[in-house]
């Protein structure tokens, strides 16, 4: 019998629509508002969900095809990295402290994103947005899992990586990333996408992902480079979702503008405070530096961010509030943060140390307006005392910001010598903040932030394993003397020195 074939009855666009948007229907046995109870209360008005156009038109078979190819390649590299003792190819064991920060502070966020995007992937009544969110949801699971696998080999030899998820729930500085993501996950679905897809993935990701991945490349960390490279095409999809959702909300109704602007203000500042951890990673933790935090901020925020918001100004959006403060802080942020972790090295699951002479010179060079005057004296004092066997460990617990949960280490904008304090009162209680940005965020939703699980105050309330700091560190599941403390006194340092010595002997 003759094969009769007609011309395709659908174009590519229509065909994709038939495989996504056409799958949904208006429910009638249960009201739509009950099936989708969460996509209206935030006040975002959507008149036409079908106006959402998926920029990728990725069907599941295509998704599995691309992703499975990437997974095969990635795991081949991870396997060979382990077989060939790739851990010995890094520049210096100090580098791994960046990885410890990553696996305890960033990988759990990937996982949280997985669950958060599942929420978005179920609860928008627009099918197209749900499909896009679902794909991001499993991508994020991918990232969390490939990171656990890629770093598993380092964990076999070095401290600080063995308990990342428990630490994320308990350790004091990890409440900074955790509260950030908890904040997003407890918000409605539109705010969640504004927070994570736009403010984080689109505006700030180059200041997180790029520094970690290029840091890995510069420092011979093939395991991290490979998963970073492998995740890049996922990330570009995620970034596109971020910009599209903002445009979608703003195009749907003028009344959405003030809500979206408020969210962008909030999530810019929340994200920027989170990046404080990255700034110290870039300027202090990488034995071979990529660029300074200041340079990265100038390129990725001051230039790229300004251009982005100029572009978005046609929708009426303005630069996020307090961006000037962030710009001012670029000369100080990393130094203030590194000082803090040097102070509290006894209570961190990574090591800190003082920069060597070359590194001091690099810092002076990269920070001509701030380093020599404000931070070098502090560091020279630490070095002098450390040489006398008197390495500084701050044995007190610090005051924390009610919103970002970072200790009060930031100084007044324009004055790097005076700690910045802000306060507000709510229902008869006083609350303290590190910045105007954090104070504003609290005042928008005080009912939310009064619930914050602030690690220092929880220790004092007796909820963290005991009264003594040592009890608390055990509750954090730290191997004392191994995970924490000064780098030069660490088993990491000893092991690395041993390897290097036996390598040079063998040569």
């Amino acid at each position, binding site marked *: 019998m003759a094969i009769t074939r007609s011309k395709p009855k659908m174009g590519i666009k229509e065909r994709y629509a038939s495989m996504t948007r056409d799958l949904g229907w208006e429910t009638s046995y249960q009201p739509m508002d009950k099936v989708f109870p969460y996509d209206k209360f*935030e*006040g975002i008005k959507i008149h036409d969900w079908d106006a959402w156009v998926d920029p990728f038109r990725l069907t599941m078979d295509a998704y599995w095809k691309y992703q499975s190819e990437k997974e095969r390649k990635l795991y081949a590299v991870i396997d060979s990295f382990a077989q060939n003792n790739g851990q010995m190819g890094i520049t210096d064991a100090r580098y791994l402290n960046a990885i410890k920060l990553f696996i305890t502070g960033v990988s759990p966020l990937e996982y949280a994103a997985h669950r958060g995007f599942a929420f978005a992937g179920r609860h928008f009544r627009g099918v197209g947005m749900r499909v896009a969110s679902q794909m991001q949801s499993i991508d994020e699971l991918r990232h969390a899992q490939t990171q656990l696998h890629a770093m598993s080999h380092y964990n076999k030899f070095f401290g600080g990586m063995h308990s990342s998820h428990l630490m994320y729930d308990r350790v004091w500085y990890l409440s900074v990333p955790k509260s950030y993501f908890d904040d997003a996950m407890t918000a409605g679905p539109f705010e969640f996408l504004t927070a994570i897809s736009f403010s984080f993935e689109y505006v700030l990701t180059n200041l997180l992902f790029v520094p970690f991945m290029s840091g890995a490349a510069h420092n011979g960390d093939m395991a991290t480079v490979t998963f970073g490279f492998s995740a890049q095409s996922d990330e570009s999809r995620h970034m596109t979702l971020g910009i599209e959702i903002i445009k979608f909300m703003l195009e749907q109704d003028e009344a959405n503008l003030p809500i979206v602007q408020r969210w962008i203000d909030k999530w810019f500042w929340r994200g920027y405070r989170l990046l404080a951890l990255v700034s110290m990673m870039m300027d202090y933790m990488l034995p071979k530096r990529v660029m300074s935090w200041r340079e990265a901020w100038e390129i990725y925020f001051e230039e790229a961010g300004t251009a982005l918001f100029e572009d978005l100004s046609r929708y009426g959006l303005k630069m996020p509030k307090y961006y000037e403060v962030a710009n001012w802080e670029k000369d100080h942020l990393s130094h203030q943060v590194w000082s803090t972790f040097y102070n509290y090295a006894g209570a961190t699951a990574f090591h800190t140390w003082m920069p060597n002479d070359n590194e001091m010179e690099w810092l002076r060079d990269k920070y001509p307006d701030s380093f020599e005057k404000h931070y070098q004296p*502090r560091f020279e004092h630490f070095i002098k005392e450390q040489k006398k066997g008197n390495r500084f460990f701050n044995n007190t617990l610090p005051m924390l910001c009610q919103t970002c949960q970072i200790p009060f280490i930031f100084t007044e904008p324009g004055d790097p010598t005076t700690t910045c304090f802000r306060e507000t009162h709510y229902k008869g*209680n006083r609350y*303290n903040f590190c910045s105007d940005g954090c104070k504003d965020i609290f005042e928008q939703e005080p009912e939310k932030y009064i*619930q914050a*699980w602030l690690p220092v105050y929880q220790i004092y309330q007796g909820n963290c394993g005991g009264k003594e700091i040592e009890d608390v560190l055990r509750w954090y599941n730290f191997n004392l003397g191994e995970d924490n403390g000064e780098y030069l006194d660490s088993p990491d340092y000893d092991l690395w020195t041993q390897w290097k010595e036996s390598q040079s002997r063998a040569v």
Partner: protein
Amino acid sequence: MSVNSIGDYSFDSRDKLENFHGAMLVFIQWEQHLVYCAPFAFPLPPDMLLGDVMKNIVLPAYAYHPDSEKATLEDFEKGQWLLDNKPLQADFTKSLAENGVKHQSILRVTIPGLDGLVGQGSAA
């Protein structure tokens, strides 16, 4: 402003005074001495004398700073104090509560002439 929620959204402050077993949360900073990266947080009984707080808790905590050898308890008492951003005539013989210190209060002190490691402006 207030939170936009589905259903009643009201919770206790996680750090309400009652949770601290009779103590209150007090923050103390010797200004300009940023070798110590942040103000200290202490849970302290409101009836504890400010002088005892300084002598037994705060001064030992600052022991690593070279300036701590140069400053006596009297220097601290005579220093310039800010309580919750308002000037305070600190009285070491009185309790925290009598000095006006409340839960989540911030005490900041400056001793003229003791400006950190390398003098005015470096804040170390």
